[in-house]
């Protein structure tokens, strides 16, 4: 009965899907497109160069961002400001092989290990900040994403390798694994806490609240299972990271795949046997927070965790400009207890400072406001826009202050 009177009554939001099947390998891409913004190209990486799988393509100046490696054997067909394009070639027998490194054997610790991981392609920023207690987020991040359970149940060795490496990085004192209520998982030496597996509990602030009973307590940090898996993958294979786990799903079909960095959306959907019709929407990321792509040759990156097709006609269309009718649904649903209706209206009329007064910074970007909006307003989009404008403004202000103080 409890659910009856609620606005949110979607069984898909229950983040447990009972899937234990191990991940299948994705397709060998015929071409890849890698993002190189902010990277410095390695020597000899230029158009027409032949590269092999695991070869260093570009380095990133920050320790937080993993270096870029070629996911396939092939020829670089184009390099522009933003991307590197590689076309696959048949691999000759004498292709150089990348020598695996056993990180666990090597025995590095602390920041040295972090640097080592960065040099193996890991985005170390997403491995969690330094904190007293680290909570491993064992919930599927978005509804529809289903790789969490297999990651915890069927890829145990990867998980253990990751835990060991992460412990050696020394970023936390205690660790807690947050898993869905009703789940019977247990690991030696890892404390588990059960949390209700309903979206949006998978968002870090809410996860921490569910674990600790407090909102934004001091000393807690989170790490997504997806990032931990990548760490474990590098630990187990000893090879640079050139892949990611994603759920590929449509209304009827869904599966988890280990796919190559830079694979194109079209090839992945083909591989998963999902046929597209005109006016379908292809979503990179999760169905609630992801972004739609405009072309099938767009690619996925290491951080991508899902690829979804939303069939035309399955949700009510957005009808151009629609104004807020004050139905209040978004206010009731917002887990941050904000008024998305006001925020979106202020953003609509470029009153960004008012958004700040209404605590827009607390918004968790869960997307529920847009999900429940009966006027089909792009509520989340407005809020993101306002956040971006405010950030730009702050950056501008900071620059000016620096100028003044240095002058």
């Amino acid at each position, binding site marked *: 009965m409890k659910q*009856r*009177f*609620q*606005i949110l*009554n979607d069984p*898909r939001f229950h983040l447990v899907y009972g899937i234990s099947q191990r991940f299948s390998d994705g397709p060998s891409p015929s071409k890849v497109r890698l993002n190189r913004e902010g990277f410095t190209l390695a020597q000899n990486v230029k158009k027409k160069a032949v590269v092999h799988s695991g070869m260093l393509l570009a380095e990133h100046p920050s320790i937080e961002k993993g270096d870029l490696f070629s996911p396939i054997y092939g020829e670089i067909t184009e390099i522009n400001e933003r991307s590197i394009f590689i076309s696959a070639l048949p691999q000759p027998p004498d292709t150089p092989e990348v020598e695996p490194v056993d990180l666990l054997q090597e025995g590095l610790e602390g920041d040295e290990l972090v640097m080592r991981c960065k040099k193996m392609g890991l985005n170390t920023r997403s491995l969690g900040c330094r904190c007293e207690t680290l909570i491993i987020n064992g919930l599927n991040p978005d509804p*529809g994403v289903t790789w969490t359970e297999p990651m915890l149940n069927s890829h145990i060795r990867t998980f253990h390798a990751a835990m060991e490496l992460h412990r050696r990085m020394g970023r936390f004192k205690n660790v807690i694994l947050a898993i869905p209520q009703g789940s019977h998982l247990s690991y030696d030496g890892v404390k588990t806490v059960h949390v209700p597996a309903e979206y949006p509990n998978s968002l870090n*602030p809410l996860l921490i609240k569910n674990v600790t009973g407090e*909102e*934004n307590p001091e000393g807690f940090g989170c790490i997504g299972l997806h990032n931990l898996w990548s760490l474990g993958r590098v630990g187990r294979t000893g090879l640079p990271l050139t892949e990611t786990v994603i759920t590929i799903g449509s209304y009827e079909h869904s599966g988890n795949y280990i796919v190559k960095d830079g694979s*194109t*959306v*079209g*090839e992945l959907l083909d591989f998963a046997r999902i*046929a597209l*019709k*005109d*006016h*379908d*929407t*292809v*979503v990179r*990321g999760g*169905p*609630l927070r*992801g*972004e*739609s*792509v*405009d*072309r*099938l040759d767009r690619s996925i990156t290491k951080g991508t965790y899902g690829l*979804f097709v939303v069939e035309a006609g399955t*949700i*009510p269309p957005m009808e*151009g400009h629609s*104004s807020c*009718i*004050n139905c*209040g*649904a978004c*206010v*009731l649903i917002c*887990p*941050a*207890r*904000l*008024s998305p209706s006001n925020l979106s209206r202020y953003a609509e009329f470029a009153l960004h400072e008012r958004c700040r007064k209404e605590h827009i910074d*607390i918004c*968790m970007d869960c*997307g529920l406001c*847009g*999900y*429940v909006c*009966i*006027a*089909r307003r*792009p509520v*989340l*989009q407005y809020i993101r826009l306002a956040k971006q404008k405010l950030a730009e403004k702050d950056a501008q202000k900071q620059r000016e202050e620096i100028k003044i103080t240095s002058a």
Partner: protein
Amino acid sequence: MSNTSPTSVLLSVSASPFWHCGRTVRAHRYHTLLALLPAVLLAIWHWGLPAARVMALAIVTGVAVEALCQRLMGRELSIDDFSGVVACLLFAFLLPAASPWWLVMLGATLCITLGKMAFGGLGANPLNTSLVGWALLYVSWPVLMDPNAMQLTTQYIDPLVRLKYFGAESVASISLTDLLLGKQIGALGASQTLALLLGGIYLATRGIIRWEISAGFIMGVVVMAAIFHTVNPVQYASPFFHMLTGSTILGAFFLATEPASSPDRQIPMMFYGLLGGAMVIIIRIFGEYTDGVPFAILLVNLLSPLLDSIRPKPFGGK
């Protein structure tokens, strides 16, 4: 079919979230109309064709006026969201079945123009759309708007009029079943209490109206009436009597719950309902209006922004 050619299909690009609860303004209004249907049928059953005439006239006028306003304001036509139909039907529910045609048309026009479009259209009105039209007519032509004065050819009685002038004892014999079934003089739709109650519960369980408001409103009526009734049962009627007469049920489920003019959060919604309900009894006992519901709701509509300022701290408490 292959997806490898980037141009083989035309993809739709839009903004996240890409899933949606499926609720739309239009669907909400369909459900509301469905919930009102039993009351519409009973109204025709009790009051015959005149009732049908009033409802149809109100809707047709209202929708035409809305279309005209939108045209004049250079807006996109949105009459197909049925919100105008619902507002005008609710307005008609508050009229006597014997209302003259010009009164109905004038009222519907006022609802849409002053109750809705003047503030910028759906959702921007601070007062209930249907009640704005009703109130303007009521203060101008009180007799024409009084069901007891208009329905001369019926064997029913107006329980509220009787209560006002002859005291609680005179209405003690009126059976609650009769009141539930609409065997009373009242506004044509508002008096179909059982039908409205069922429709209202349907909307509340579907989450289309906020149960907090309806529950608060009924609580307000019942508690306030109970207090008076306990103090002096000879003078003051029982809470159930108040619940089933006038437009209490219509108000609780269909008028007070109009989203634009009511608060958004749970606690303010409950207060709003309670205050509205309590106000009904106060007006009925101390005021000069027999029903009290429309004015009580208009009053709490005005309080709604104030109530909305009762807000929890945002996440993390700042």
